């Protein structure tokens, strides 16, 4: 790598020499690949911190009563765990890292449409993150509202809510600008011969995601602004003491935050749709169905927010309308799963680590999705709403889904990003430990949730202890798996064997160029196929 020649062919983006040197060559970089890595390192750091905070909560819950921290500390920790993981890890996660790195390459472009805006959104992201971290250390103490900031608790509590909401507001801006950039990139920067329906499916999912980012985030922005004004000036929108309406806050909050779940999961589905054809050497089954189901999820996903509020005292009509729409939004996800299975049929399946992660994604996402049906049905929702059942369902979707999708993407595109390969055996072991730990951690929560263990509880009745103990043991195993996985990848990036341009025999555009890619991605015009997954 150090002795990279300056001849015509391919100076990799990692070695490219620009105007700036050292760290400035990174933090002033407008190259989409370098910005992607900036996001990768920042987000990974936050993810590890968030995971450790999660483990601390699990340790506290290993026995009833006070175990290692006070109730107020616990409330602060689950709040910051939520804010960090949601706004700083899973929402930007896949789209800002892999969307940035591979979206332009997959559509045959040299960069995103607005490279400087792209860097600017990274800076906004970092600013927001710093604010979120600062909110923990300021005088009045860490916010203790939960990441949902429900009024009127959030307007009344003495802790530092304003900083945390400002952080979420700023992070939303970054999300909007990234989405805007991707939409324009997909519309305007595709290689001349690439039509919308000859794009790979990861760009399709990024496209659907970007629209949600652009059209949903403003609603949370204005809601958080109102919450801040409420705390500063008592404008009374959400505080019943002044005639306001706490349920209105929940409506406004979930108008964004439900679609936000699709911001998290859609790119992960896109990643899985890339990995399965490659490792089965099969043309993707039902290309149009998968592409359209992404748009359908994004579209219908706007209209189902009320299922977070089934017990809030909404009108009966609203409750059943939202329940009906919620069941409808399950269909496109099911269609995707069936198409993935059909793609494996009569393939030539090579069970390498990326596919292992992809298949465990399908398993975990199915559990998350199917338990979502329990939550979407009005009668059963009454029992499991606001219990640890929801916690388990949510983590199966977001950690089992988005998280494992993220790990799958990392293992799939790793050789392209770094030009080196990680150790397969260690990757498989880490996967096994992660998978076992994950299920041990979250599955018991379904059961105690159905029995009535409320969420956000610091202390609990003795009958729930078995479930909590198993869950905590799972949490410890999960962290070990996580550590092994990260270690293997770091070792691979630094000392791994050189990776060929196309280690998995993939058919999409990123595998047609050298690893790591050159500064301008394509030295010559890429060959565009009619169907990006053509293996014949």
């Amino acid at each position, binding site marked *: 790598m150090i002795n990279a020649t300056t001849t015509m062919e391919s100076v990799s983006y990692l070695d490219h020499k*620009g*105007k700036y040197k050292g760290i400035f060559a990174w933090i002033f970089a*407008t190259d989409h690949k370098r910005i992607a890595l900036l996001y990768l390192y920042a987000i990974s750091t936050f993810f590890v911190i968030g995971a450790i905070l999660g483990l601390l909560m699990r340790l506290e819950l290993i026995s009833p009563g006070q175990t290692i921290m006070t109730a107020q500390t616990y409330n602060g920790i689950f709040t910051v765990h939520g804010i960090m993981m949601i706004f700083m890890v899973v929402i930007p996660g896949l789209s800002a890292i892999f969307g940035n790195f591979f979206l332009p390459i997959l559509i045959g472009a*040299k960069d995103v*449409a*607005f490279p400087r*805006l792209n860097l600017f959104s990274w800076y906004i992201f970092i600013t927001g993150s710093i604010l979120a971290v600062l909110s923990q250390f300021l005088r009045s103490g860490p916010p203790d509202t939960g990441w949902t900031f429900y009024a009127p608790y959030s307007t009344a509590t003495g802790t530092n809510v304003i900083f945390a909401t400002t952080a979420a507001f700023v992070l939303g801006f970054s999300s*909007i600008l990234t989405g*805007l*950039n991707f*939409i*324009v990139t997909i*519309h*305007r*920067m595709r290689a001349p011969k690439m039509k919308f329906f000859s794009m790979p499916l990861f760009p399709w999912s990024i496209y659907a995601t970007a629209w949600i980012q*652009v*059209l*949903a*985030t*403003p*609603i949370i*922005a*204005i*809601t958080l*602004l*109102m919450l801040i*004004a409420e705390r*500063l*000036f*008592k*404008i*009374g*929108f959400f505080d019943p003491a*002044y*005639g*306001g*309406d706490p349920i*209105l806050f929940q*409506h*406004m909050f979930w*108008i964004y935050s439900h679609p936000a779940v699709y911001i998290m999961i859609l790119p992960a589905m896109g990643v899985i749709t890339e990995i399965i054809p490659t490792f089965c050497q099969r043309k993707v089954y039902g290309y149009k169905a998968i592409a359209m189901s992404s748009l359908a999820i994004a579209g219908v996903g706007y209209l189902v927010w009320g299922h977070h509020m089934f017990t809030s005292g909404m009108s009966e009509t609203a409750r059943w309308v939202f329940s009906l729409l919620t069941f409808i939004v399950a269909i496109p996800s099911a269609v995707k799963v069936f198409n993935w299975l059909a793609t494996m049929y009569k393939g030539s399946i090579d069970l390498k680590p990326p596919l292992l992660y992809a298949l465990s994604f399908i398993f975990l996402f199915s559990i998350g999705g199917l338990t979502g049906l329990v939550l979407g049905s009005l009668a059963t929702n009454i029992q499991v709403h606001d219990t640890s059942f929801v916690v388990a369902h949510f983590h199966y979707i977001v950690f089992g889904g988005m998280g494992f999708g993220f790990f799958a993407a990392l293992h799939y595109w790793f050789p392209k990003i770094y030009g080196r390969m990680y150790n397969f055996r260690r990757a498989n072991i880490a996967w096994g430990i992660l998978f076992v730990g994950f299920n041990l951690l979250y599955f018991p929560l379904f059961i105690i949730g159905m029995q009535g263990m409320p969420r956000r509880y610091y202390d609990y009745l003795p009958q729930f202890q078995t479930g909590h103990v198993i869950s905590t043991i799972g949490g410890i195993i999960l962290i070990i798996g996580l550590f092994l996985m990260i270690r293997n990848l770091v070792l691979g990036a630094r000392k791994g064997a050189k990776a060929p341009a196309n280690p998995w025999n993939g058919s999409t555009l990123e595998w047609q160029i050298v690893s790591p890619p050159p500064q*301008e991605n394509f030295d010559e015009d890429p060959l565009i196929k009619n169907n990006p997954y053509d293996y014949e």
Partner: protein
Amino acid sequence: MENELIHKEETRDDTAAKLGMWIFIFTELLLFGGLFIVYSVFRTQYSREFHQAALELNVTIGAFNTIVLLISSMTIAMALTALQKNNKKLSLRLIGITILMAFVFLVNKYFEWGAKFHHGIYPGSELMMKFEHGHLLYFSLYFFMTGLHALHIIAGMVLLSVIFFRIKKGIIHSEKYVFLENGALYWHLVDLIWIFLFPLLYLIT
């Protein structure tokens, strides 16, 4: 970097810039859209109080400001036409008028708000805390909505000033005017929002 500049020049894409601006405008529309949702919910709950509270606003000032904004919207649209027709001097003048109009709008707003403050009506004031609920919510909405709108006016003024000087320097010219086009789009957005704010806050009494 030099390489990059050339590379950017090559891929200059006005349609992309315009599309980007439109998407940004969508986000702004939905930002105010959220406020309109809050407004409509409270209006249906407290329609009588909103009715009475709205009488306390000065329709003349509101109407005057509407006219000012509408005219400024036309002048900025004409500035674009002028630049496209390579009439730099007229374009600069029209942008100048637009910024002046924005300034007039703000001065007006200043006096309107000032009068309210003078009567002890401002967010968090003791008087407002004593209002009936609907009354309080109306004024909170009034300050929040017009305040946010005024911030957008200020942002628009800054943007148009930048454009003014760039045209003067010749960076924006009759062959390359997408920056002015986007600035104008933003200004029309500010106008568009006011078109809805005006009847909702001042007229529906």
